[in-house]
C-alpha cells in the first residue's frame, strides 16, 4: 500500500518537475500528462474510482490535448533562440513559493490531514451522482451556465474570425 503510494507520488512529482524543467514545450506538455496520470492513479489507489477516471478522461483526454493544440497552433515546436528561461525567474520563484506555502498551510491546517483511524467511507458513483443533482445542484447548474456561456463566446469568436477575410 505504502510502496505503491510512494511509487505513484514519485511518478507524479517526476512528471511535474519534468514539466517545469524540460526545454521543449511539447515535452513539457507530455510530462504534465504523466503528472496527471500519476494523480489519477493516486485517486484510484484511494478507492476513488470516479475521481480517478474523471481525472484521466478530463485531464489527459481533454486538457492535455488542449495544451498540445494550443502549443502547436500558436508557435512552432522549435526551441526559441533566446533561451527558454524567463528574465523574471526570481519573481516567479517567490510567487511559486508563496502559493506552495499557502497550499501547504491549508492542507496541514485542515482536519483531514490528521490520520484518521476509522474506515474509509465507500463512495460509489451513484452517491456522487445523487450528491451532484441533490445537495450540490445549484453549483452544478451555475457551472453548466458558465460553460454554456463560454461555449457561446467561443463560437462567436470563431464566427468573427471567419467573416473577416470576405
Amino acid at each position, binding site marked *: 500500500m505504502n510502496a505503491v503510494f510512494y511509487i505513484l507520488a514519485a511518478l507524479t512529482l517526476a512528471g511535474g518537475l519534468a514539466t517545469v524543467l524540460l526545454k521543449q514545450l511539447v*515535452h513539457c506538455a507530455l510530462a504534465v500528462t504523466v503528472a496527471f496520470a500519476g494523480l489519477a492513479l493516486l485517486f484510484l489507489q484511494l478507492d476513488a474510482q470516479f475521481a480517478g*477516471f474523471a481525472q484521466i*478522461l478530463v485531464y*489527459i483526454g481533454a486538457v492535455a490535448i488542449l495544451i*498540445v493544440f494550443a502549443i*502547436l497552433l500558436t508557435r512552432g515546436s522549435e526551441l526559441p533562440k533566446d533561451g527558454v528561461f524567463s528574465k523574471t525567474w526570481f519573481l516567479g520563484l517567490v510567487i511559486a513559493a508563496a502559493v506552495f506555502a499557502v497550499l501547504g498551510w491549508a492542507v496541514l491546517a485542515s482536519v483531514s490531514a490528521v490520520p484518521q483511524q476509522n474506515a474509509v467511507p465507500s463512495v460509489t458513483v451513484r452517491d456522487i451522482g445523487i450528491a451532484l443533482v441533490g445537495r450540490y445542484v445549484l453549483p452544478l447548474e451555475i457551472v453548466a451556465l458558465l460553460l454554456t456561456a463560454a461555449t457561446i463566446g467561443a463560437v462567436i469568436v470563431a464566427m468573427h474570425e471567419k467573416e473577416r477575410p470576405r
Partner: protein
Amino acid sequence: MIATPEATNPFFVNLDQIFVFLSNWLVGFLPAVLRPVAGVVLGVVAIVCVFPGLFALTTVFERKGLGRIQNRIGPNRVGPYGLFQPVADGIKSLTKEDIVPLRANAVVHFLAPLVLVVTVFMGFAVLPMGRNMVLVDMDAGLLFFFAMGAATELSVFMAGWSSRNKYSLLGAMRAVAQMISYEVVLLLSSVAVVMITGSLSLPKIVAAQNQYTGVFPHWYIFTPWGLAGFLMYAIAATAETNRSPFDLPEGESELVAGYHTEYSGFKFALFFLGEYLAMFSISGLGTTLFLGGWSAPFSFLVWVPSWFWFFGKVMLSIFVFIWMRGTLPRLRQDQLMNFAWKFVLPFTLLNLLVTALWRFMGEGWARWMVCTVILVAAYVVMGRVEMRSEHFGRRSYRYAE
C-alpha cells in the same frame, strides 16, 4: 429467463462457463495467496492472446471481403484460401528494418505505439465477454473505458509530432480533432443507456438487457431512443476508430499515411494492431450497451454459450465496418466537422431528452409513440435542413460546371 430444457442441461451450462471453470482450475494449482492475482493475470493473458488472434483473422477477412465487394478474389496465396496471410504479414513486419527518422524525437517516437496499444488493451478489461466473464467488474466501468479511449488520442498526437514530418503532424492534428469531436457524441450516446440502467457498470447494463418478453429480448436497440443512440454511437465509433468513411487522418491521397507515416516494421504493425483492437473494443462496448452484450437474441437460444453471442455480435459489427469501408467514399474535413457538430451532436442531445422522457413516462404504448414521433420528426427535419445548407450537403462547384 431460463425457458427451454436445453438451458438447464448441465452440459450447456458447463459449456457456457467453460472458460470460467478453466481459469478457476488453472488458478487452483497455486497457493491461495496468489490466486486473485493469478486469476487476473490469466484473464489478461487470455485477452492479449484472443484479440490479436481475432485481429489477424479480421485483416485477412477484411481484405477478402473488400475484394469480393469490388468483384476481386482477394488474397488466396498463403495457405488454404489465403488464411495464413496474417502470418506472412507478421513475419514481414517483424523482419523489416525499423526506421527512425534522423530528426525524430526518438523517445516519444518509440513510446507512441506502446501507449496506443496499452491503452487500447486496457479498455477490454471492463467488457463483459460472457456470463461471469469480465476481467474487472468496476463500478465505473463505462467511465474507465472512455478514460482509456481518451488516452489513445494522446498517443496519436505523440506519433504525429515526434515523427517530424509534416504529413504525420497534419494527420495527427486531423485525427485528434476528429476524435475529440466524435468522442463527445460517443459519450453522450452512451449516457442515454446509463440514464435508463442507472449504472456505469457494464455487467449491470447487460443484466438489465438480458430479459425477454415472449421470445424477444429487452435490448436497448429495440427502443426508439436505443436505436437512435445506437446509430449515433455507430457513427461516432466509426469516426473514433478512424475507419472509412471517416479515415481522413490517414487519407493516403493527401497525407501519405497520416500520423504513422514515419513508422515501419513492427512499430507500424503495433499501430495497425492498435487500430483494429480499438475497433474490437468499441464494437464490444456498442454490443454491451445497445445489443444486449452476451445475451441471446431469442429466449429459446439461451442455451447457446454466452461468449458465443458476444463474439458473434462483435464480429458482426466488424463485418458492418468492413462493409461500410467497401461502400462509402472518404469525407472532406469540413463535412466531417459539420456533420459532427451540426447534426450528430444536436441529435444525440435530443436523444438524451427523449431518453429522459422515456424514463419518466412509465410503461405503456404512449411512450413508444411519443418518443418515436419526436425522433423521426427530428431526423427528417434536421436531415432536410442540413442537406440544404451549403456546408453540409451537395457541393456546388463554382468553376467546374
